[in-house]
């Protein structure tokens, strides 16, 4: 089909610096209202901004991680508009000279890797927050006023909500890797607006771009994009022309609602922020920041494949977050079997966390304990199924695997004499099964193994049971 969806994203990321961007107030989420304020972030007359070096360095980390061109000089501008949560009547931002321009992020949809290019990354300050009360009055909290932000603007390179979602996940992951933001959408430290339209490349027709706001999670972003894609397709098919507009996603209604039509571009009357003199960005500073960057997701994944012999898929999953990758390598130092450890991590561990809707940084089991558990299995001290039971117990109680195994007497029976006795007894009471086996019914073996496991409360070494059973049954 010649109709193509074009999606571009504008992402605001709050930087997790110690201080606000232009004053010495602490940068912290969730404090009592209006306790983290001073003349500067309240925009009192006469107060002046002084730019925080850490905020600039955090933004430069992002620029380097995404391969952007870095500006030679940092220039700040004033973006003028009136709004109650904006203390000065202008936001200190960047207009013609963003700190970073260009750059890209690679996503991996099923069709193969794809580069999503960035238009720019610039730095700016956050605004305060309006709190609307039930009686219709509005209150203002300026704790967030002056918190540093980067705005990341992509080109319209994404052609489906799926690609946009992959991009957002990769972006969040990378931002977390480089340690510049908490990237929590629910706390507003990552906020995303979507620009979307559709084009018919054969006919050369297209719809006007719609900007969608109020997206509180990746899930609602995807739903909103799907909704808008369908709406734009219909507009295009019906041959209706639409104007540029801004719409708001209504999570409850599952639809977008028009906020305003944009007949003309917004005029923010950008002017130089003369209170902040231009700051040169020298090569040495950039190199220092580049050196301080951690191994990025893609490089880590390649290394996991090469060093640990993991498949591309496994390496991808295990490097999804820095914590997970770190945990894996820490555990591996004690287990020395990447494939085995990978299976445990990707199977039982991650599934369990996902079921409980937890991030990996909430993982309750230490790498040492997990390594111990896997070694118990590897050394045949407990069998695989018992291992899984012990893992569940570890999740629930936080106890060490050795303790659980001891307490519950779960050590695997690998004593040949002891097992032989149980095998003989089981064969004695199940002559019919011996008969069935000899008549070619292999299923009989399964039944007999089950009986033996039952008799040993699951502790029998399964390989040994199989071996002994085959030997003994043939003697009958």
């Amino acid at each position: 089909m010649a109709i193509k969806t074009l999606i571009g994203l504008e992402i605001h990321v709050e930087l997790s610096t110690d201080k606000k961007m232009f004053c010495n107030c602490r940068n912290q989420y969730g404090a009592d209202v209006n306790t983290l304020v001073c003349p500067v972030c309240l925009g009192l007359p006469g107060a002046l901004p002084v730019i925080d070096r850490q905020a600039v360095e955090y933004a430069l980390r992002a620029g380097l991680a995404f391969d952007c061109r870095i500006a030679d000089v940092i220039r700040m501008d004033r973006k003028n508009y009136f709004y109650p949560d904006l203390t000065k009547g202008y936001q200190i931002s960047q207009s013609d000279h963003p700190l970073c321009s260009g750059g890209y992020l690679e996503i991996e949809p099923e069709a193969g890797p794809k580069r999503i290019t960035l238009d720019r990354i610039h730095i700016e300050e956050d605004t305060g927050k309006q709190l609307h009360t039930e009686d219709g009055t509005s209150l203002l909290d300026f704790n967030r006023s002056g918190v540093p932000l980067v705005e990341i603007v992509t080109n319209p390179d994404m052609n489906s909500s799926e690609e946009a979602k992959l991009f957002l996940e990769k972006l969040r992951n990378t931002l977390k890797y480089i340690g510049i933001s908490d990237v929590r959408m629910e706390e507003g430290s990552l906020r995303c607006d979507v620009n979307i339209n559709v084009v018919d490349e054969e006919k050369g027709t297209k719809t006007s771009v719609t900007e969608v706001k109020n997206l509180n999670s990746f899930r609602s972003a995807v739903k909103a994009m799907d909704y808008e894609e369908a709406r734009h397709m219909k507009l295009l098919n019906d041959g209706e022309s639409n104007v540029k507009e801004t719409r708001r996603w209504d999570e409850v209604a599952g639809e977008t609602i028009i906020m305003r039509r944009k007949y003309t571009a917004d005029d923010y009357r950008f002017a130089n922020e003369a209170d902040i003199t231009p700051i040169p960005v020298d090569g040495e500073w950039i190199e220092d920041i580049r050196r301080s960057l951690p191994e990025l997701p893609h490089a880590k994944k390649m290394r996991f494949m090469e060093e640990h012999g993991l498949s591309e898929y496994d390496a991808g999953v295990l490097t999804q977050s820095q914590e997970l990758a770190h945990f894996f390598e820490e555990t591996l130092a004690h287990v020395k079997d990447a494939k085995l450890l990978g299976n445990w991590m990707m199977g039982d561990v991650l599934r369990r966390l996902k079921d409980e809707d937890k991030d990996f940084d909430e993982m309750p089991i230490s790498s040492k304990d997990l390594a111990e558990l896997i070694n118990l299995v590897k050394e045949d001290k407990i069998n695989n199924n018992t291992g899984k039971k012990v893992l569940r117990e570890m999740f629930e109680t936080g106890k060490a695997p050795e303790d659980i195994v001891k307490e519950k007497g779960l050590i695997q029976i690998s004593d040949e004499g002891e097992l032989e006795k149980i095998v003989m007894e089981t064969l004695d009471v199940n002559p019919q099964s011996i008969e069935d086996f000899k008549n070619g019914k292999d299923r009989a073996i399964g039944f007999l193994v089950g009986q033996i496991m039952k008799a040993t409360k699951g502790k029998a070494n399964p390989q040994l049971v199989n071996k002994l059973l085959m030997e003994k049954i043939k003697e009958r």
Partner: protein
Amino acid sequence: MDITSLKGWEMKERLLGKEISSREILSAHLDMIDRKEKDLNAFITLDREGAIEAARKVDAKLQRGEDLGALAGIPVALKDNILTKNLRTTCGSRMLENFNPPYDATVVRKIREADGVILGKTNMDEFAMGGSTETSYFGNTRNPRDLSRVPGGSSGGSAAAVAGHETPLALGSDTGGSVRQPASFCGIVGMKPTYGLVSRYGVVPMSNSLDQIGVFGRDVKDAHMMLTSVSGYDPLDATSSKKAGRDISLAGVDSLKGLRVALPEEYRNLRITGDEKIQERFRETVKVFEDAGAIIDYVSLPSLEYSLETYYIIMSSEVSTNLSRFDGVRFGYRTENYETLDELYTNSRTEAFGEETKRRIMLGTYSLSAGYQTENYKKALRVRTLIKQDYERAFRDHDVILSLTAPMLPFELDSMVNSPVDMYKADLYTVPVNLAGLCAISVPMGDVEGLPVGLQITGPRFGDSTILKAGLGYERVVR
């Protein structure tokens, strides 16, 4: 002895010699204020209690034999756009009629630390916009030399207070001549230091790339004492400079001999040359410099021709954004007449801003608007660079540039209020200095028709010491 006729530095000498006390100095000035304020209206707010307390502290320190600061016991008046903690700061506007700042400006902190005695806050054109102090919400200030005339502006209250002996020292702010022009009109010394020499933290901005705190005194030595008490790098002001030149010394100057003086040719050919008698006085003054051994030379600064237009575009653009925070939401005046948010904004600003302020906000909003910004604001920024370069060239082989401070004598009250463009044009000698971030001082060069006129001595960036010394040299020759 009339204490108020002494210079600030003379008061300090007598105080340290224990001839007079800080309380006596203060009382003399408060008496003068009581006698003259009904005519001058130089102050918007007086802080008698604060001043008495400060003077008492100085006397106590003196008695205990403790070290005293550079402004020990000397009264200082502050233009009312300089924030003083818990002392009303109005900017001459209804918008801030009841605004009590929660913090001190850096310069105020420095004055307190230097044991200065702050008398109060002086009248000014609203938000420093004007050249006559007539746009103030708090009434006109009159010129002490002739009460029917304006004191100049926008720092007219500070200039009148110093000229009227209500205080020996005062601070003003100078965005396009607002310290130098009132100094010229009132017959005192007024200096705009190099941009970045004095912290702007806590000074309500008008046009933040041009604004600079300036100083008033009745002679150069007083201006120097005031300046060195408040100058210096301030980590709270990113535009304040760490550069050298902080050592602003008057040492080692006795004459104008060898001073390399430049006269801009462009000023010879100006259409608005003002009063011919003022020009004549200027030529005589140049002759005084020459006779005293200065080397006089003409230079060309071609971009000066565009400085007024450049200034009015950049200044008004910055004004429009700097004054956005006065929206009735968090502080300052709020209308009672609103239903919607837009009405809250519009009516608060309509009711509380005066005409000149609104005029400049509208000019600036226009200059920054999409479609007009390229041919106005951005072009003006480029011309500004050319002006800077012209000056840099001129200062390569000259120490100072001499010119008039203002092309006119102090005019009658209310005579210019309906001629804003003529008022703007009168800034032609002063605004280029702000555009280029230079320093300049206005020193009295006698009277014309019984009214004072000022000589402007301009120096390169951080040439503050040079222009002060030139001013001092001139003072000595003509005394």
